[in-house]
């Protein structure tokens, strides 16, 4: 019986079992199974919320009927929202340019400090980046506070009149950018420092032998060698800065007169506080095409340079 069983069973299940084994051993199957957790995470935490936000943005205020692109049309008709678009662009572009410039300068300074001292400076300069922004922004708010600003107190000691940091539109815009730059510049610094360290020293030596000035070394050696990392960091920072919420929320709450609102803070005000979730979703989705266009051009530049180098 036992022999017979052993002899007949494989014959009966062999075709199915073998094909299952083959299927399980296929590289594509293994690859799929190994990436499945990631697919689930991306599907659940990225694709589904994004899709749901798109769906919400097509509903009316009570979320009872489909109005297509009606919310986007209404938003574009609103002066306040057009101003939010301007402010978001102004905030993100100005802040990223400043962060990149300051980060680049700091990276160069650090690069020329001997390794032992460099570590201390690197650690200290990274502090703003590691403090949770909501907390550090609260600290800045105390410094800018309309009535009891500590910065104004210091200015007054030197007979400089108080600055309406958060009360006057352009000062408020500047304050928001200052805090964002303070928080984000260390990220650029550390990225650029890593890139600087990877530039072969021989290139500088060769340039020096050819009589290149320091400006020419920067222009023709450093910048081309760092072009890709600059592009990627700028793109990454643009995305993060465009989506910034906490700094505006804590510092100005969008005021005065909505002039410091960015997409995220305005979306929260319209969607959650004013109870119009579909329109809030539409506000937040406005970032998507803008960032997609920027990402397309930046990544195309990176690919082109990679092809040229290869």
């Amino acid at each position, binding site marked *: 019986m036992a022999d017979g069983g052993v002899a007949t069973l494989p014959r009966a299940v062999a075709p199915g079992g073998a094909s299952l084994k083959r299927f399980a051993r296929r590289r594509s199957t293994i690859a799929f199974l190994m990436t499945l957790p990631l697919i689930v995470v991306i599907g659940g935490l990225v694709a589904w919320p994004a899709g749901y936000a798109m769906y919400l943005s097509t509903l009316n205020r009570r979320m009872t009927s489909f109005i297509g692109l009606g919310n986007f049309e209404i938003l574009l008709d609103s002066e306040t929202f057009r101003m939010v678009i301007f402010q978001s662009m102004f905030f993100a572009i100005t802040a990223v340019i400043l962060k990149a410039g300051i980060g680049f300068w700091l990276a160069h300074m650090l690069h020329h400090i001997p390794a032992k001292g460099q570590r201390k400076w690197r650690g200290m300069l990274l502090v703003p980046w590691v403090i949770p922004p909501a907390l550090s922004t609260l600290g800045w708010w105390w410094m800018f506070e*309309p009535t009891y600003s500590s910065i104004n107190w210091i200015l007054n000691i030197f007979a400089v009149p108080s600055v309406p940091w958060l009360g006057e539109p352009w000062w408020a815009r500047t304050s928001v950018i200052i805090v964002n730059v303070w928080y984000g510049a260390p990220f650029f610094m550390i990225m650029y420092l890593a890139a600087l360290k990877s530039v072969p020293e021989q290139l500088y030596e060769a340039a020096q032998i050819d009589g290149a000035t320091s400006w020419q070394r920067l222009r023709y050696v450093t910048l081309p060698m760092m072009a890709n990392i600059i592009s990627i960091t700028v793109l990454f920072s643009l995305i993060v800065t465009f989506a910034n919420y906490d700094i505006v929320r804590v510092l100005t709450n969008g005021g005065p*007169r909505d002039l410091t609102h960015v997409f995220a803070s305005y979306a929260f*005000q319209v969607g959650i506080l004013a*109870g119009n*979730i579909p329109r809030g979703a539409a506000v937040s989705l406005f970032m998507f095409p803008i960032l997609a266009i920027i990402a397309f051009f930046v990544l195309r530049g990176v690919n082109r340079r990679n092809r040229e180098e290869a």
Partner: protein
Amino acid sequence: MSKNGMSRRSVLRNGAGVLAATAVGAPMVHAQGTAGSLRFAFWDHWVPGSNDALKQLATRWGEQNRVNMTLDFINTTGNQLQLTIAAQAQSRSGHDGISLLPWDPGTYADQLEPCDDVMQRLTAKYGAVNPVAEFLAKRGGAWRGVPATSGTQAKPACVRADLLQQHAGIDIKAMWPAADRAGPGAENWTWDTFATAAEACHKAGVPFGLPMGQFTDAVDWVGAVFLSYGARVTDEQGNPTIRNNAELRQAVDYLVKLSRFLPPEVWAWDDASNNRALISGRSALIFNPPSAWAVAKRDAPQVAENCWTVPMPGGPKGRFLAYLPYVTGIWSFGRNKTAAKGFLEFITQRENCDFISTFGQGYDIPPFLSMSDFKVWETEGPPVGTIYNYPLKAHHQATYSIAFSPAPPELAQQMYLQALNTKVVARIAQGNESMDAALGWLEREIINMRRGG
């Protein structure tokens, strides 16, 4: 093991049973013949220990009705309560009942259990409900919750009586004594008198601390000024009434002029800035519940001793008092709605409203107009009687109000939360726009808000 009558399997089976019973039915531990359990989320009161009033009432009611009560207190800092409400409404799960902010009953009306039966019994007992609470808590003819005592506030003037007497020559304590009568000169407590006093105090270096930003304190007092002048930006149907609106122009013009006598930073003030201005002794008057005075009592007693709460000034169309009610709603997806209604009815009984208000040092105003005579407003001090005139009384000849009413609540909510009234003033006073340009902007914003259902 098995020899003792206990096998490994039986231990595991019994253990799993105990665990399941603990996890699934933890609140039902005492549930033999009980009415189940209730979980409520209330606004986390700023007055230390004030939450204890609700805790004690919940314990008492739970024992009487054999219901296991769980109370969570969620604060509004960082909009935590608003986010919790939105998340629970979206996921259709969470507490049985929750504190709703003033405009929330309308926003979530479809997901809130009508409480008409409870309100019918309560109004039969205590009379009319505050009209603002009714405006906010009723949708489609049904009560979407029970107006709450805890957290509900009005925003009369908290005056530094000494400074107003010294710089503006107004004896505010005599004008509004701690008694059920108006004193001499109370009829002159108008916005015109107010502007003259504001100018005098501004010159003396103790300007009135009136926020002009986008937070509720600013929207509320500016809203009361609008109503005092009869200035409406829409009619009851939500149609803009801005063109050729003399009252609106008069109110805006008044506010633009008044803003010249305020601290220059008021455009960036939040809800705490006016409190700080009063407590630090830099300001002679703010519009606020007694919270600023209560903090001054602790941190600056010399300031608190000179504070006196009085009604808002009146205008050509009457005297209005800004009022912000909390409403406790019961989710339609809650599990124990009958018990939840019973609990809300219990905490809205007169003696329990009194209990809650006393715990909150008089901060909380009950929803029924007949409940404006609690002892706490007579006895709190120093000075004794300082908040006697905090809730609206008959001799104030005033009406409770909320900015942008009587516009349809859905529209009023958006106008309120986007602070259209303070922004239109700011556009002229700070942005140097003409009256016509600013009012044109206001009309276009309202038209846009009405679109999209």
